[in-house]
């Protein structure tokens, strides 16, 4: 096929491995489709070079739209996107030099594995010998050596996604964007491919931006997570920071289980919930809870202890009476489903050897004061 646009400056082709990552910076990014609420509503985020950043959130939270804005598939309503300081806001997708993985793999069905992987190199006018060498190299990286002449339909889902991965990194892209790439795979394969993606992130060293609605996937893969809600970023931080120090009730609920006590008044040195009053450690009050009108106290299930009566609770710790409504045996642990005063449901995670509790039993739940967290709601 003849070249269709010789005037176009082609993006440079970097080696597959050992490329320093690129910084991606989003500044006040807005995408408005003219609906009641903008799909992306003022998102600012800096993704550091070589970082594995996950955009996490429920469906419709704007995470995929944000990824599409980075890729250039959608145009910005306002705001800026820059790669290593260069504004790319108005650059078409084929000039952004990004690799991309899709949920349905998006392999070209009329091309073989080798032709699929060679596609971005051919577009960049890489010499033939070089293409052959690189395709072999990257297929080895994703452990698909020898499958060159298969067409995608002959491969399993996991293999197809590995071909897509090879195709997306073979030209040394600025960054790799992953749009729920594991969503179509079954559980076992997903785990295997997660490990693969992590390994390739380590070996290639480029910036990865990963979109998912699966919090476990986000926790296990990411350096940092940007949690999306209603087109805005709720909180950015390491998986541990988000889990241990949520700023808002949304974050606390989206990442892991929580016992939630909605507070009637702003937190001071103590907080009041129904007829109980608990002391708080100022370090466990989130910044946004301090500023917010409404707050909630959250405790993770693994931090909740169960005592048979008030007397057995250590002195000075927050406690609340509860009724056991269910005990679930889950192999390595037991989950006790509790009903607190006023019908508020909660959970405690206990050791699997705990067998004393019976359904309907009245108990007292307690936790250490430093393990509770006050968040805004």
């Amino acid at each position, binding site marked *: *096929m003849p070249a*269709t*646009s010789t005037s*176009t400056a*082609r*993006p440079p082709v970097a080696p597959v491995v050992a490329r320093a990552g690129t910084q991606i910076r989003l500044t006040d990014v807005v995408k408005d489709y003219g609906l009641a609420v903008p799909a992306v509503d003022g998102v600012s985020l800096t993704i550091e070079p070589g970082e594995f950043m996950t955009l996490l959130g429920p469906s419709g939270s704007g995470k995929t739209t944000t990824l599409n804005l980075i*890729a*250039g*598939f959608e145009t910005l309503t306002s705001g800026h996107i820059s790669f290593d300081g260069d504004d790319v806001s108005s650059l*078409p*997708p*084929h*000039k*952004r*030099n*990004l*690799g*991309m993985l*899709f949920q*349905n793999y*998006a*392999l*070209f*069905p*009329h091309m073989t594995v080798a032709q699929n992987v060679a*596609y*971005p190199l051919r*577009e*960049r006018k890489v010499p033939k010998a070089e293409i052959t060498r690189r395709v072999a190299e990257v297929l080895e990286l994703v452990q698909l050596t020898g499958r060159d002449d298969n*067409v995608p*339909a002959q491969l399993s889902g996991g293999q197809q996604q590995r071909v*897509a991965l090879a*195709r*997306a990194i073979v*030209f040394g892209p600025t960054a790799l*964007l992953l749009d729920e790439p594991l969503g179509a795979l079954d559980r076992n394969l997903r785990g295997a491919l997660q490990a693969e993606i992590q390994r390739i992130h380590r070996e290639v060293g480029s910036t990865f931006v990963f979109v998912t609605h699966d919090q476990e996937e986000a926790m296990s893969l990411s350096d940092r997570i940007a949690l999306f809600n209603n087109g805005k970023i709720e909180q950015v931080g390491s998986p541990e920071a988000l889990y241990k120090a949520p700023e808002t009730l949304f974050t606390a609920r989206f990442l892991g289980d929580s016992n939630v006590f909605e507070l009637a008044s702003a937190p001071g040195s103590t907080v009041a919930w129904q007829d109980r009053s608990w002391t708080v450690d100022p370090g466990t009050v989130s910044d946004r809870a301090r500023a917010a009108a409404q707050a909630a106290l959250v405790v993770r299930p693994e931090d909740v202890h169960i005592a048979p009566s008030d007397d057995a609770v250590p002195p000075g710790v927050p406690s609340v009476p509860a009724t056991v409504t269910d005990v679930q045996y889950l192999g390595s642990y037991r989950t006790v489903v509790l009903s607190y005063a006023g019908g508020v449901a909660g959970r405690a995670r206990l050791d699997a050897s705990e067998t004393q509790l019976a359904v309907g039993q009245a108990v007292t739940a307690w936790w250490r004061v430093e393990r509770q967290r006050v968040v805004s709601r």
Partner: protein
Amino acid sequence: MTATGSAPRTDVPDAPPARPVRRRSRGVDAVPWWLRLVVAVVGLYFVLPTLFVIPMSFSESTTFSFPPEGFSLQLYRNFFTDPVWLTSLRNSFVVALVAALLATVVGTAAAVGLHHLTGRLARLARTVLMISIVTPGIVIAVVVYISFLKWHLVGSFTGYVLAHAAIGMPFVLVSVTSALSGFDSKLLRASASLGATPLRTFVRVTMPLISRGIVTGAVFAFVTSFDEVVIALFLRSPTFQTLPVQMFNSVTFEVDPTIAATSSLVVTAVTVVCLVPLLLGTRRKNRQES
């Protein structure tokens, strides 16, 4: 071999077959004899004219007669030695080729463009573009004739091509649209992310994947133009006429039995052209299965 489990054949060794055997899944009930009869009668009805005309084309007689008298290639000799027939055949062929090319380019572009649009305007545009399929040929012919008189296109090669491309284009639109319905538009994004311009993406991704629709549409456009007679009658001039017009003349003015040979040739040619997408399709399928 035994995918459907019926009629195991013990004489076949269980070495893998060279090509996977695909067995058509049958309904539960056997096809009754009367239904077979109806099918046979309908089929016969369609091929009967051809069955008459082909033997007649080998007749020795200088008038129309059936059954044919004797056997000779006289009528074919008439056809291939008469410059009037040959010129009109060439005219028809060139017009059909150029018209089909034009219709294919425009129809494919329209189908691809409309595929990405979903609004009411797009639906309206699609309907308007297809309207010539249901418009009576004579209406189109009159309209074309009046307009072309004004534009001095009557009797010209350009006139034929434009008119025939216009009536062939909807067939391309239909076949390419149906080919696009199985096309995954995520591939366009994948291609763009890999550095291909929209035009390169169309050439390397979209076109190969909808090629069957394009070829089918092109064949229909070609055949539509090749045997189109109503518009051609209006547009004919002493210096330029197509084969169907010459055939019409030969029957109405001359009662020339050469038309039997001509018809046989046209039937054969059109059948061969129509088989092209079919052959293309089976070849691709075989390649995918191997």
